[in-house]
């Protein structure tokens, strides 16, 4: 008993001692501190931090690492008493959200030599709120040990990933989880058309091993060999290879290059240093840092590519990268949440059903190969149609009244919206589950005839 009270006192003592020896950490925010909220990994930020602080010894960078979604929420929630200077992240749509909320301030950089477009995508926000400092495009990465052990061929185009040989070997992140994945899906929808785009997307998804919760989950899974092929943004593939993993990366023809961005937060406590940091990012010196093997992002200054290693993709020279699709930003923005919800309902949440139906069709097709059986082949075609079917058409996906259901933010109390997201999603879910089950049934019946 006596012992216990001594113990609790000493425990308290230890806790207090630790508390007192640590200086009041939050008081470190002294003058000349530049606070940056970013989603970038420390491999990227520490390189820029070191170089910038060396050049500007009186400014200290405070890097606040938040994933993009958390970063947006953080800036929104702290806006009333803002202590952040810069927001620095990949997906342009994250910046669009902040811009719409009036949480960014305009900045025009003095750095010259940056063109207007990379691929078909404008590098900077036309309204001047955020600046692109690096480009990135989606592509396919694969684990060479995995493809060798499982004897699967190297995929070249999105189309290849539909083939039965890739069943259960592909991974991707959900567009609702990752802004850049969203852009890939939207690119495919715009490049192939709404119906064909979804058909391709679902046929690829039928081969998925998994839909990961974070975008980094995809390169992580490929690097481990948990699945062999990943649909990823280029720097994930390039930097994984740069870190020594047995992986390779390539761009398919239909892809879009998207800038990674930076913007000054409204009411930034240290706006002048924030501007200096943006200028530094865009300067030849800053652009060159992007070539670091652990970073590997595409510079937006074309002259920097002269210093790039052999085989480094150059979108300003190689017009095949990211130029095939003319990306319509307004269309993408309008149906942003709708496409995410549709993808989740049709693919993410019903992946098991989709996979099972796809497998049945692939088995039937394999059995049909080399035989002539018109009945079976028309049944297989029917099953494919059932999988491809989308509950709404493109016109509806662009209907402002309909997409408003998925934008919960009402601008004015008088804005009238009818219908609720949960209601719509339940309708879609019914449609999709029935179709997948029916497709599986028909494919199995076709198989029985062969």
């Amino acid at each position, binding site marked *: 008993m006596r012992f216990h009270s001594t113990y609790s006192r000493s425990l308290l003592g230890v806790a207090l001692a630790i508390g007192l020896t640590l200086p009041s950490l939050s008081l470190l925010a002294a003058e000349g501190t530049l606070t940056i909220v970013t989603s970038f990994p420390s491999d990227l930020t520490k390189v820029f931090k070191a170089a910038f602080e060396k050049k500007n010894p009186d400014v200290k960078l405070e890097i606040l690492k938040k994933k993009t979604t958390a970063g947006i929420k953080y800036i929104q929630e702290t806006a009333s008493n803002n202590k952040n200077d810069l927001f620095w992240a990949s997906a342009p749509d994250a910046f669009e959200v902040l811009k719409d909320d009036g949480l960014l301030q305009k900045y025009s950089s003095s750095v010259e030599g940056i063109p207007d477009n990379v691929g078909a995508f404008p590098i900077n926000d036309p309204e001047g709120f955020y600046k692109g400092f690096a480009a990135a495009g989606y592509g396919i990465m694969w684990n060479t040990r995995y493809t060798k052990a499982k004897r699967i061929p190297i995929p070249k185009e999105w189309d290849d990933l539909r083939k039965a040989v890739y069943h259960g070997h592909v991974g991707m992140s959900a567009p609702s989880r990752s802004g850049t994945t969203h852009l890939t899906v939207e690119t495919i929808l715009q490049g192939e058309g709404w119906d064909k785009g979804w058909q391709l997307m679902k046929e690829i998804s039928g081969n998925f091993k998994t839909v990961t919760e974070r975008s980094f989950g995809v390169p992580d899974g490929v690097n481990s060999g948990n699945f062999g092929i990943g649909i990823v943004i280029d720097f994930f593939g390039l930097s994984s290879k740069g870190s020594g993993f047995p992986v390779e990366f390539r761009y398919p023809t239909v892809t879009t290059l998207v800038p990674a961005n930076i913007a000054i937060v409204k009411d930034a406590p240290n706006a002048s240093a924030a501007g200096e940091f943006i200028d530094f990012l865009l300067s030849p010196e800053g652009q060159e840092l992007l070539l670091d093997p652990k970073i590997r992002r595409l510079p937006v200054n074309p002259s920097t590519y002269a210093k790039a290693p052999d085989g480094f993709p150059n979108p300003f020279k190689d017009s095949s990268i990211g130029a095939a699709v003319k990306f319509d930003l307004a269309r993408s923005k309008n149906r942003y949440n709708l496409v995410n919800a549709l993808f989740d309902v049709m693919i993410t949440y019903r992946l098991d059903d989709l996979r099972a139906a796809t497998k049945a069709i692939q088995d039937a097709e394999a059995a049909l190969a080399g035989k002539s059986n018109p009945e079976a082949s028309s049944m297989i075609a029917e099953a494919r149609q059932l999988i491809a079917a989308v509950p709404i058409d493109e016109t509806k996906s662009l209907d402002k009244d309909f997409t408003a259901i998925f934008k919960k933010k009402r601008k004015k109390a008088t804005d009238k919206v009818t219908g609720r997201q949960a209601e719509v999603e339940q309708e879609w879910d*019914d449609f999709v589950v029935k179709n997948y089950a029916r497709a599986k049934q028909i494919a199995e019946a076709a198989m029985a005839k062969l």
Partner: protein
Amino acid sequence: MTTITWSRVIPRTQWRTTLVALAIALFLATFLLVPVAKVIFVAFQDPNSGAFTLINFKDFFTTSLFQESFWNSFYVASISVIVATIIALPLAYFTTRFNFGGAILIQTLGIVPLIMPPFVGAVAMLLLFGENGSFNLLMDEWFGFTIPLMDGLNGVIFVQSIHYFPFILINLSASLNNIDRSMEEAALSLGASGMRLFRRIVFPLSMPGYVAGASLVFLKVFDDLGTPLLLNVNNMLAPQAYLRISSIGISDPMGYVISVILVVFSLFTMWISFLALRKKDYATVQKGGGGLMKRDLKFWEKLGCYSIVLLILAVVLSPHLGLALLSFGTIWSYSVLPDGYTFDHYIEIFNSAGPFISNTLLYAGLAGLIDVILGIAIAYVVLRTGIRGRKWLDQLAMASLAVPGVVLGIGYLRSFHQTELPFTDTSLASFWLIIVIALSIRRLPYALRACVAALQQVSESLEEAAENLGASKWHSVRRIVIPLMTGGILAGFITSFATAAVELSATIMLVSAEADAPLAYGIYVFMQSAAGRGPGAALGMFAVVIVALGTYFSHRIIERTRHEYVTQTEGDFK
């Protein structure tokens, strides 16, 4: 309220404990109820008009995906409790009832599975047990088939059981140690032994600890989202809530509706577990030390016990072996073991790890301390006083188990960001102490269940005796009740401390300067890039080692206390 009703609400003799209860209620209201309410009121709002409505709940019950998710969560949680019990029972029983070399070490290693650092833990698990992990690569090579250990709901059950069984182990062990051994002695002398002794005497008497542990496992698995997300299983409630809350730029009310459902269901489960223990008296007058000492085992029995224990430990500690390999390995990809080994990752984090470690110790230590203090106080108020609404205090505290960390984090930013700290220009939300409070709120249920179980086993007659002898209430609590609860209190501290040390979801919203960040945040930062995997794993190893050491010394202290207590009471009897 008039004075008349006041005196009815508060019995006159209990104004001091009432004050304590009110203080706790105020604390919970400020740091749990209000912040969470500020976020989840959306669940009761018409998404179109903004008016109050229950339509979102109707949507929940008519959506087939949510129904399916609910049953999946329920199924996984129930089966996980069973599997976790099978793992925990032998460890707890062997180490508390027999003279067993290395009992403290086993108890310590038994808690390590609870410390699964975010992200790196997941990678390690997949590298070992995934479809192309070490285990299955070997299975394929030797036997030509693989076992889908990490697939679908079964994968979730597998990972959850080996992750959360320590809740049962810790609480059950504390309970077993508290049983008056003369009960067993009496049973033995009446001819009961072996399974019969265990089934009829030992296990029933240890029910408070077992129920505390099992209900925690059930609730935690039901509400957990880390594991389903790691396995990319979406059709469960917690991940559904999370995925809908944390998508970019939208606020689908269904995420918050699910949060409310999770809270309500958790309270319902607590109520069931309360019913299970009601009307039974688990208190024994004498505490574990007296009476029968631990039994010795015959050689063959010992061999059997050791092989069971070692087998269990091998399974439950394998993720940490994987973590260690990851932290020392160079490249580990589609192979049984890493390609090579290196110290580079440790060297890389050497400079940055210092502040992370001291922050973690400070935050998790303080959070654990706050939790046991609150836990003891709430347990006492609930079990020993007649204050009206005391059960609400318990349930309010337990409700935090079901609140997703991200909701709590956003709630804190919303509630405290505009509160400036005196004498500085920093906001309360960016002061490091707010992280401590968030952690203590999130981990309070663990400590609370342990303290309640401990107090249930203390006979009230001991306090009455002390008070009859002239001791004041406060004096008898301090000198009689708390010392008798030591085992349970330390069990509570360990679980709160260990799990707080690797918490990320609320922390990531609240970290406002890297200098204030704990280890889990450091791991997160590393785990965003391919090159950061090794250093992230090395940081994860630090977390595991720190918590394991903390646990080990706590156990040493329990044993020493018990030893002193035994010699002291035996001396008294001589």
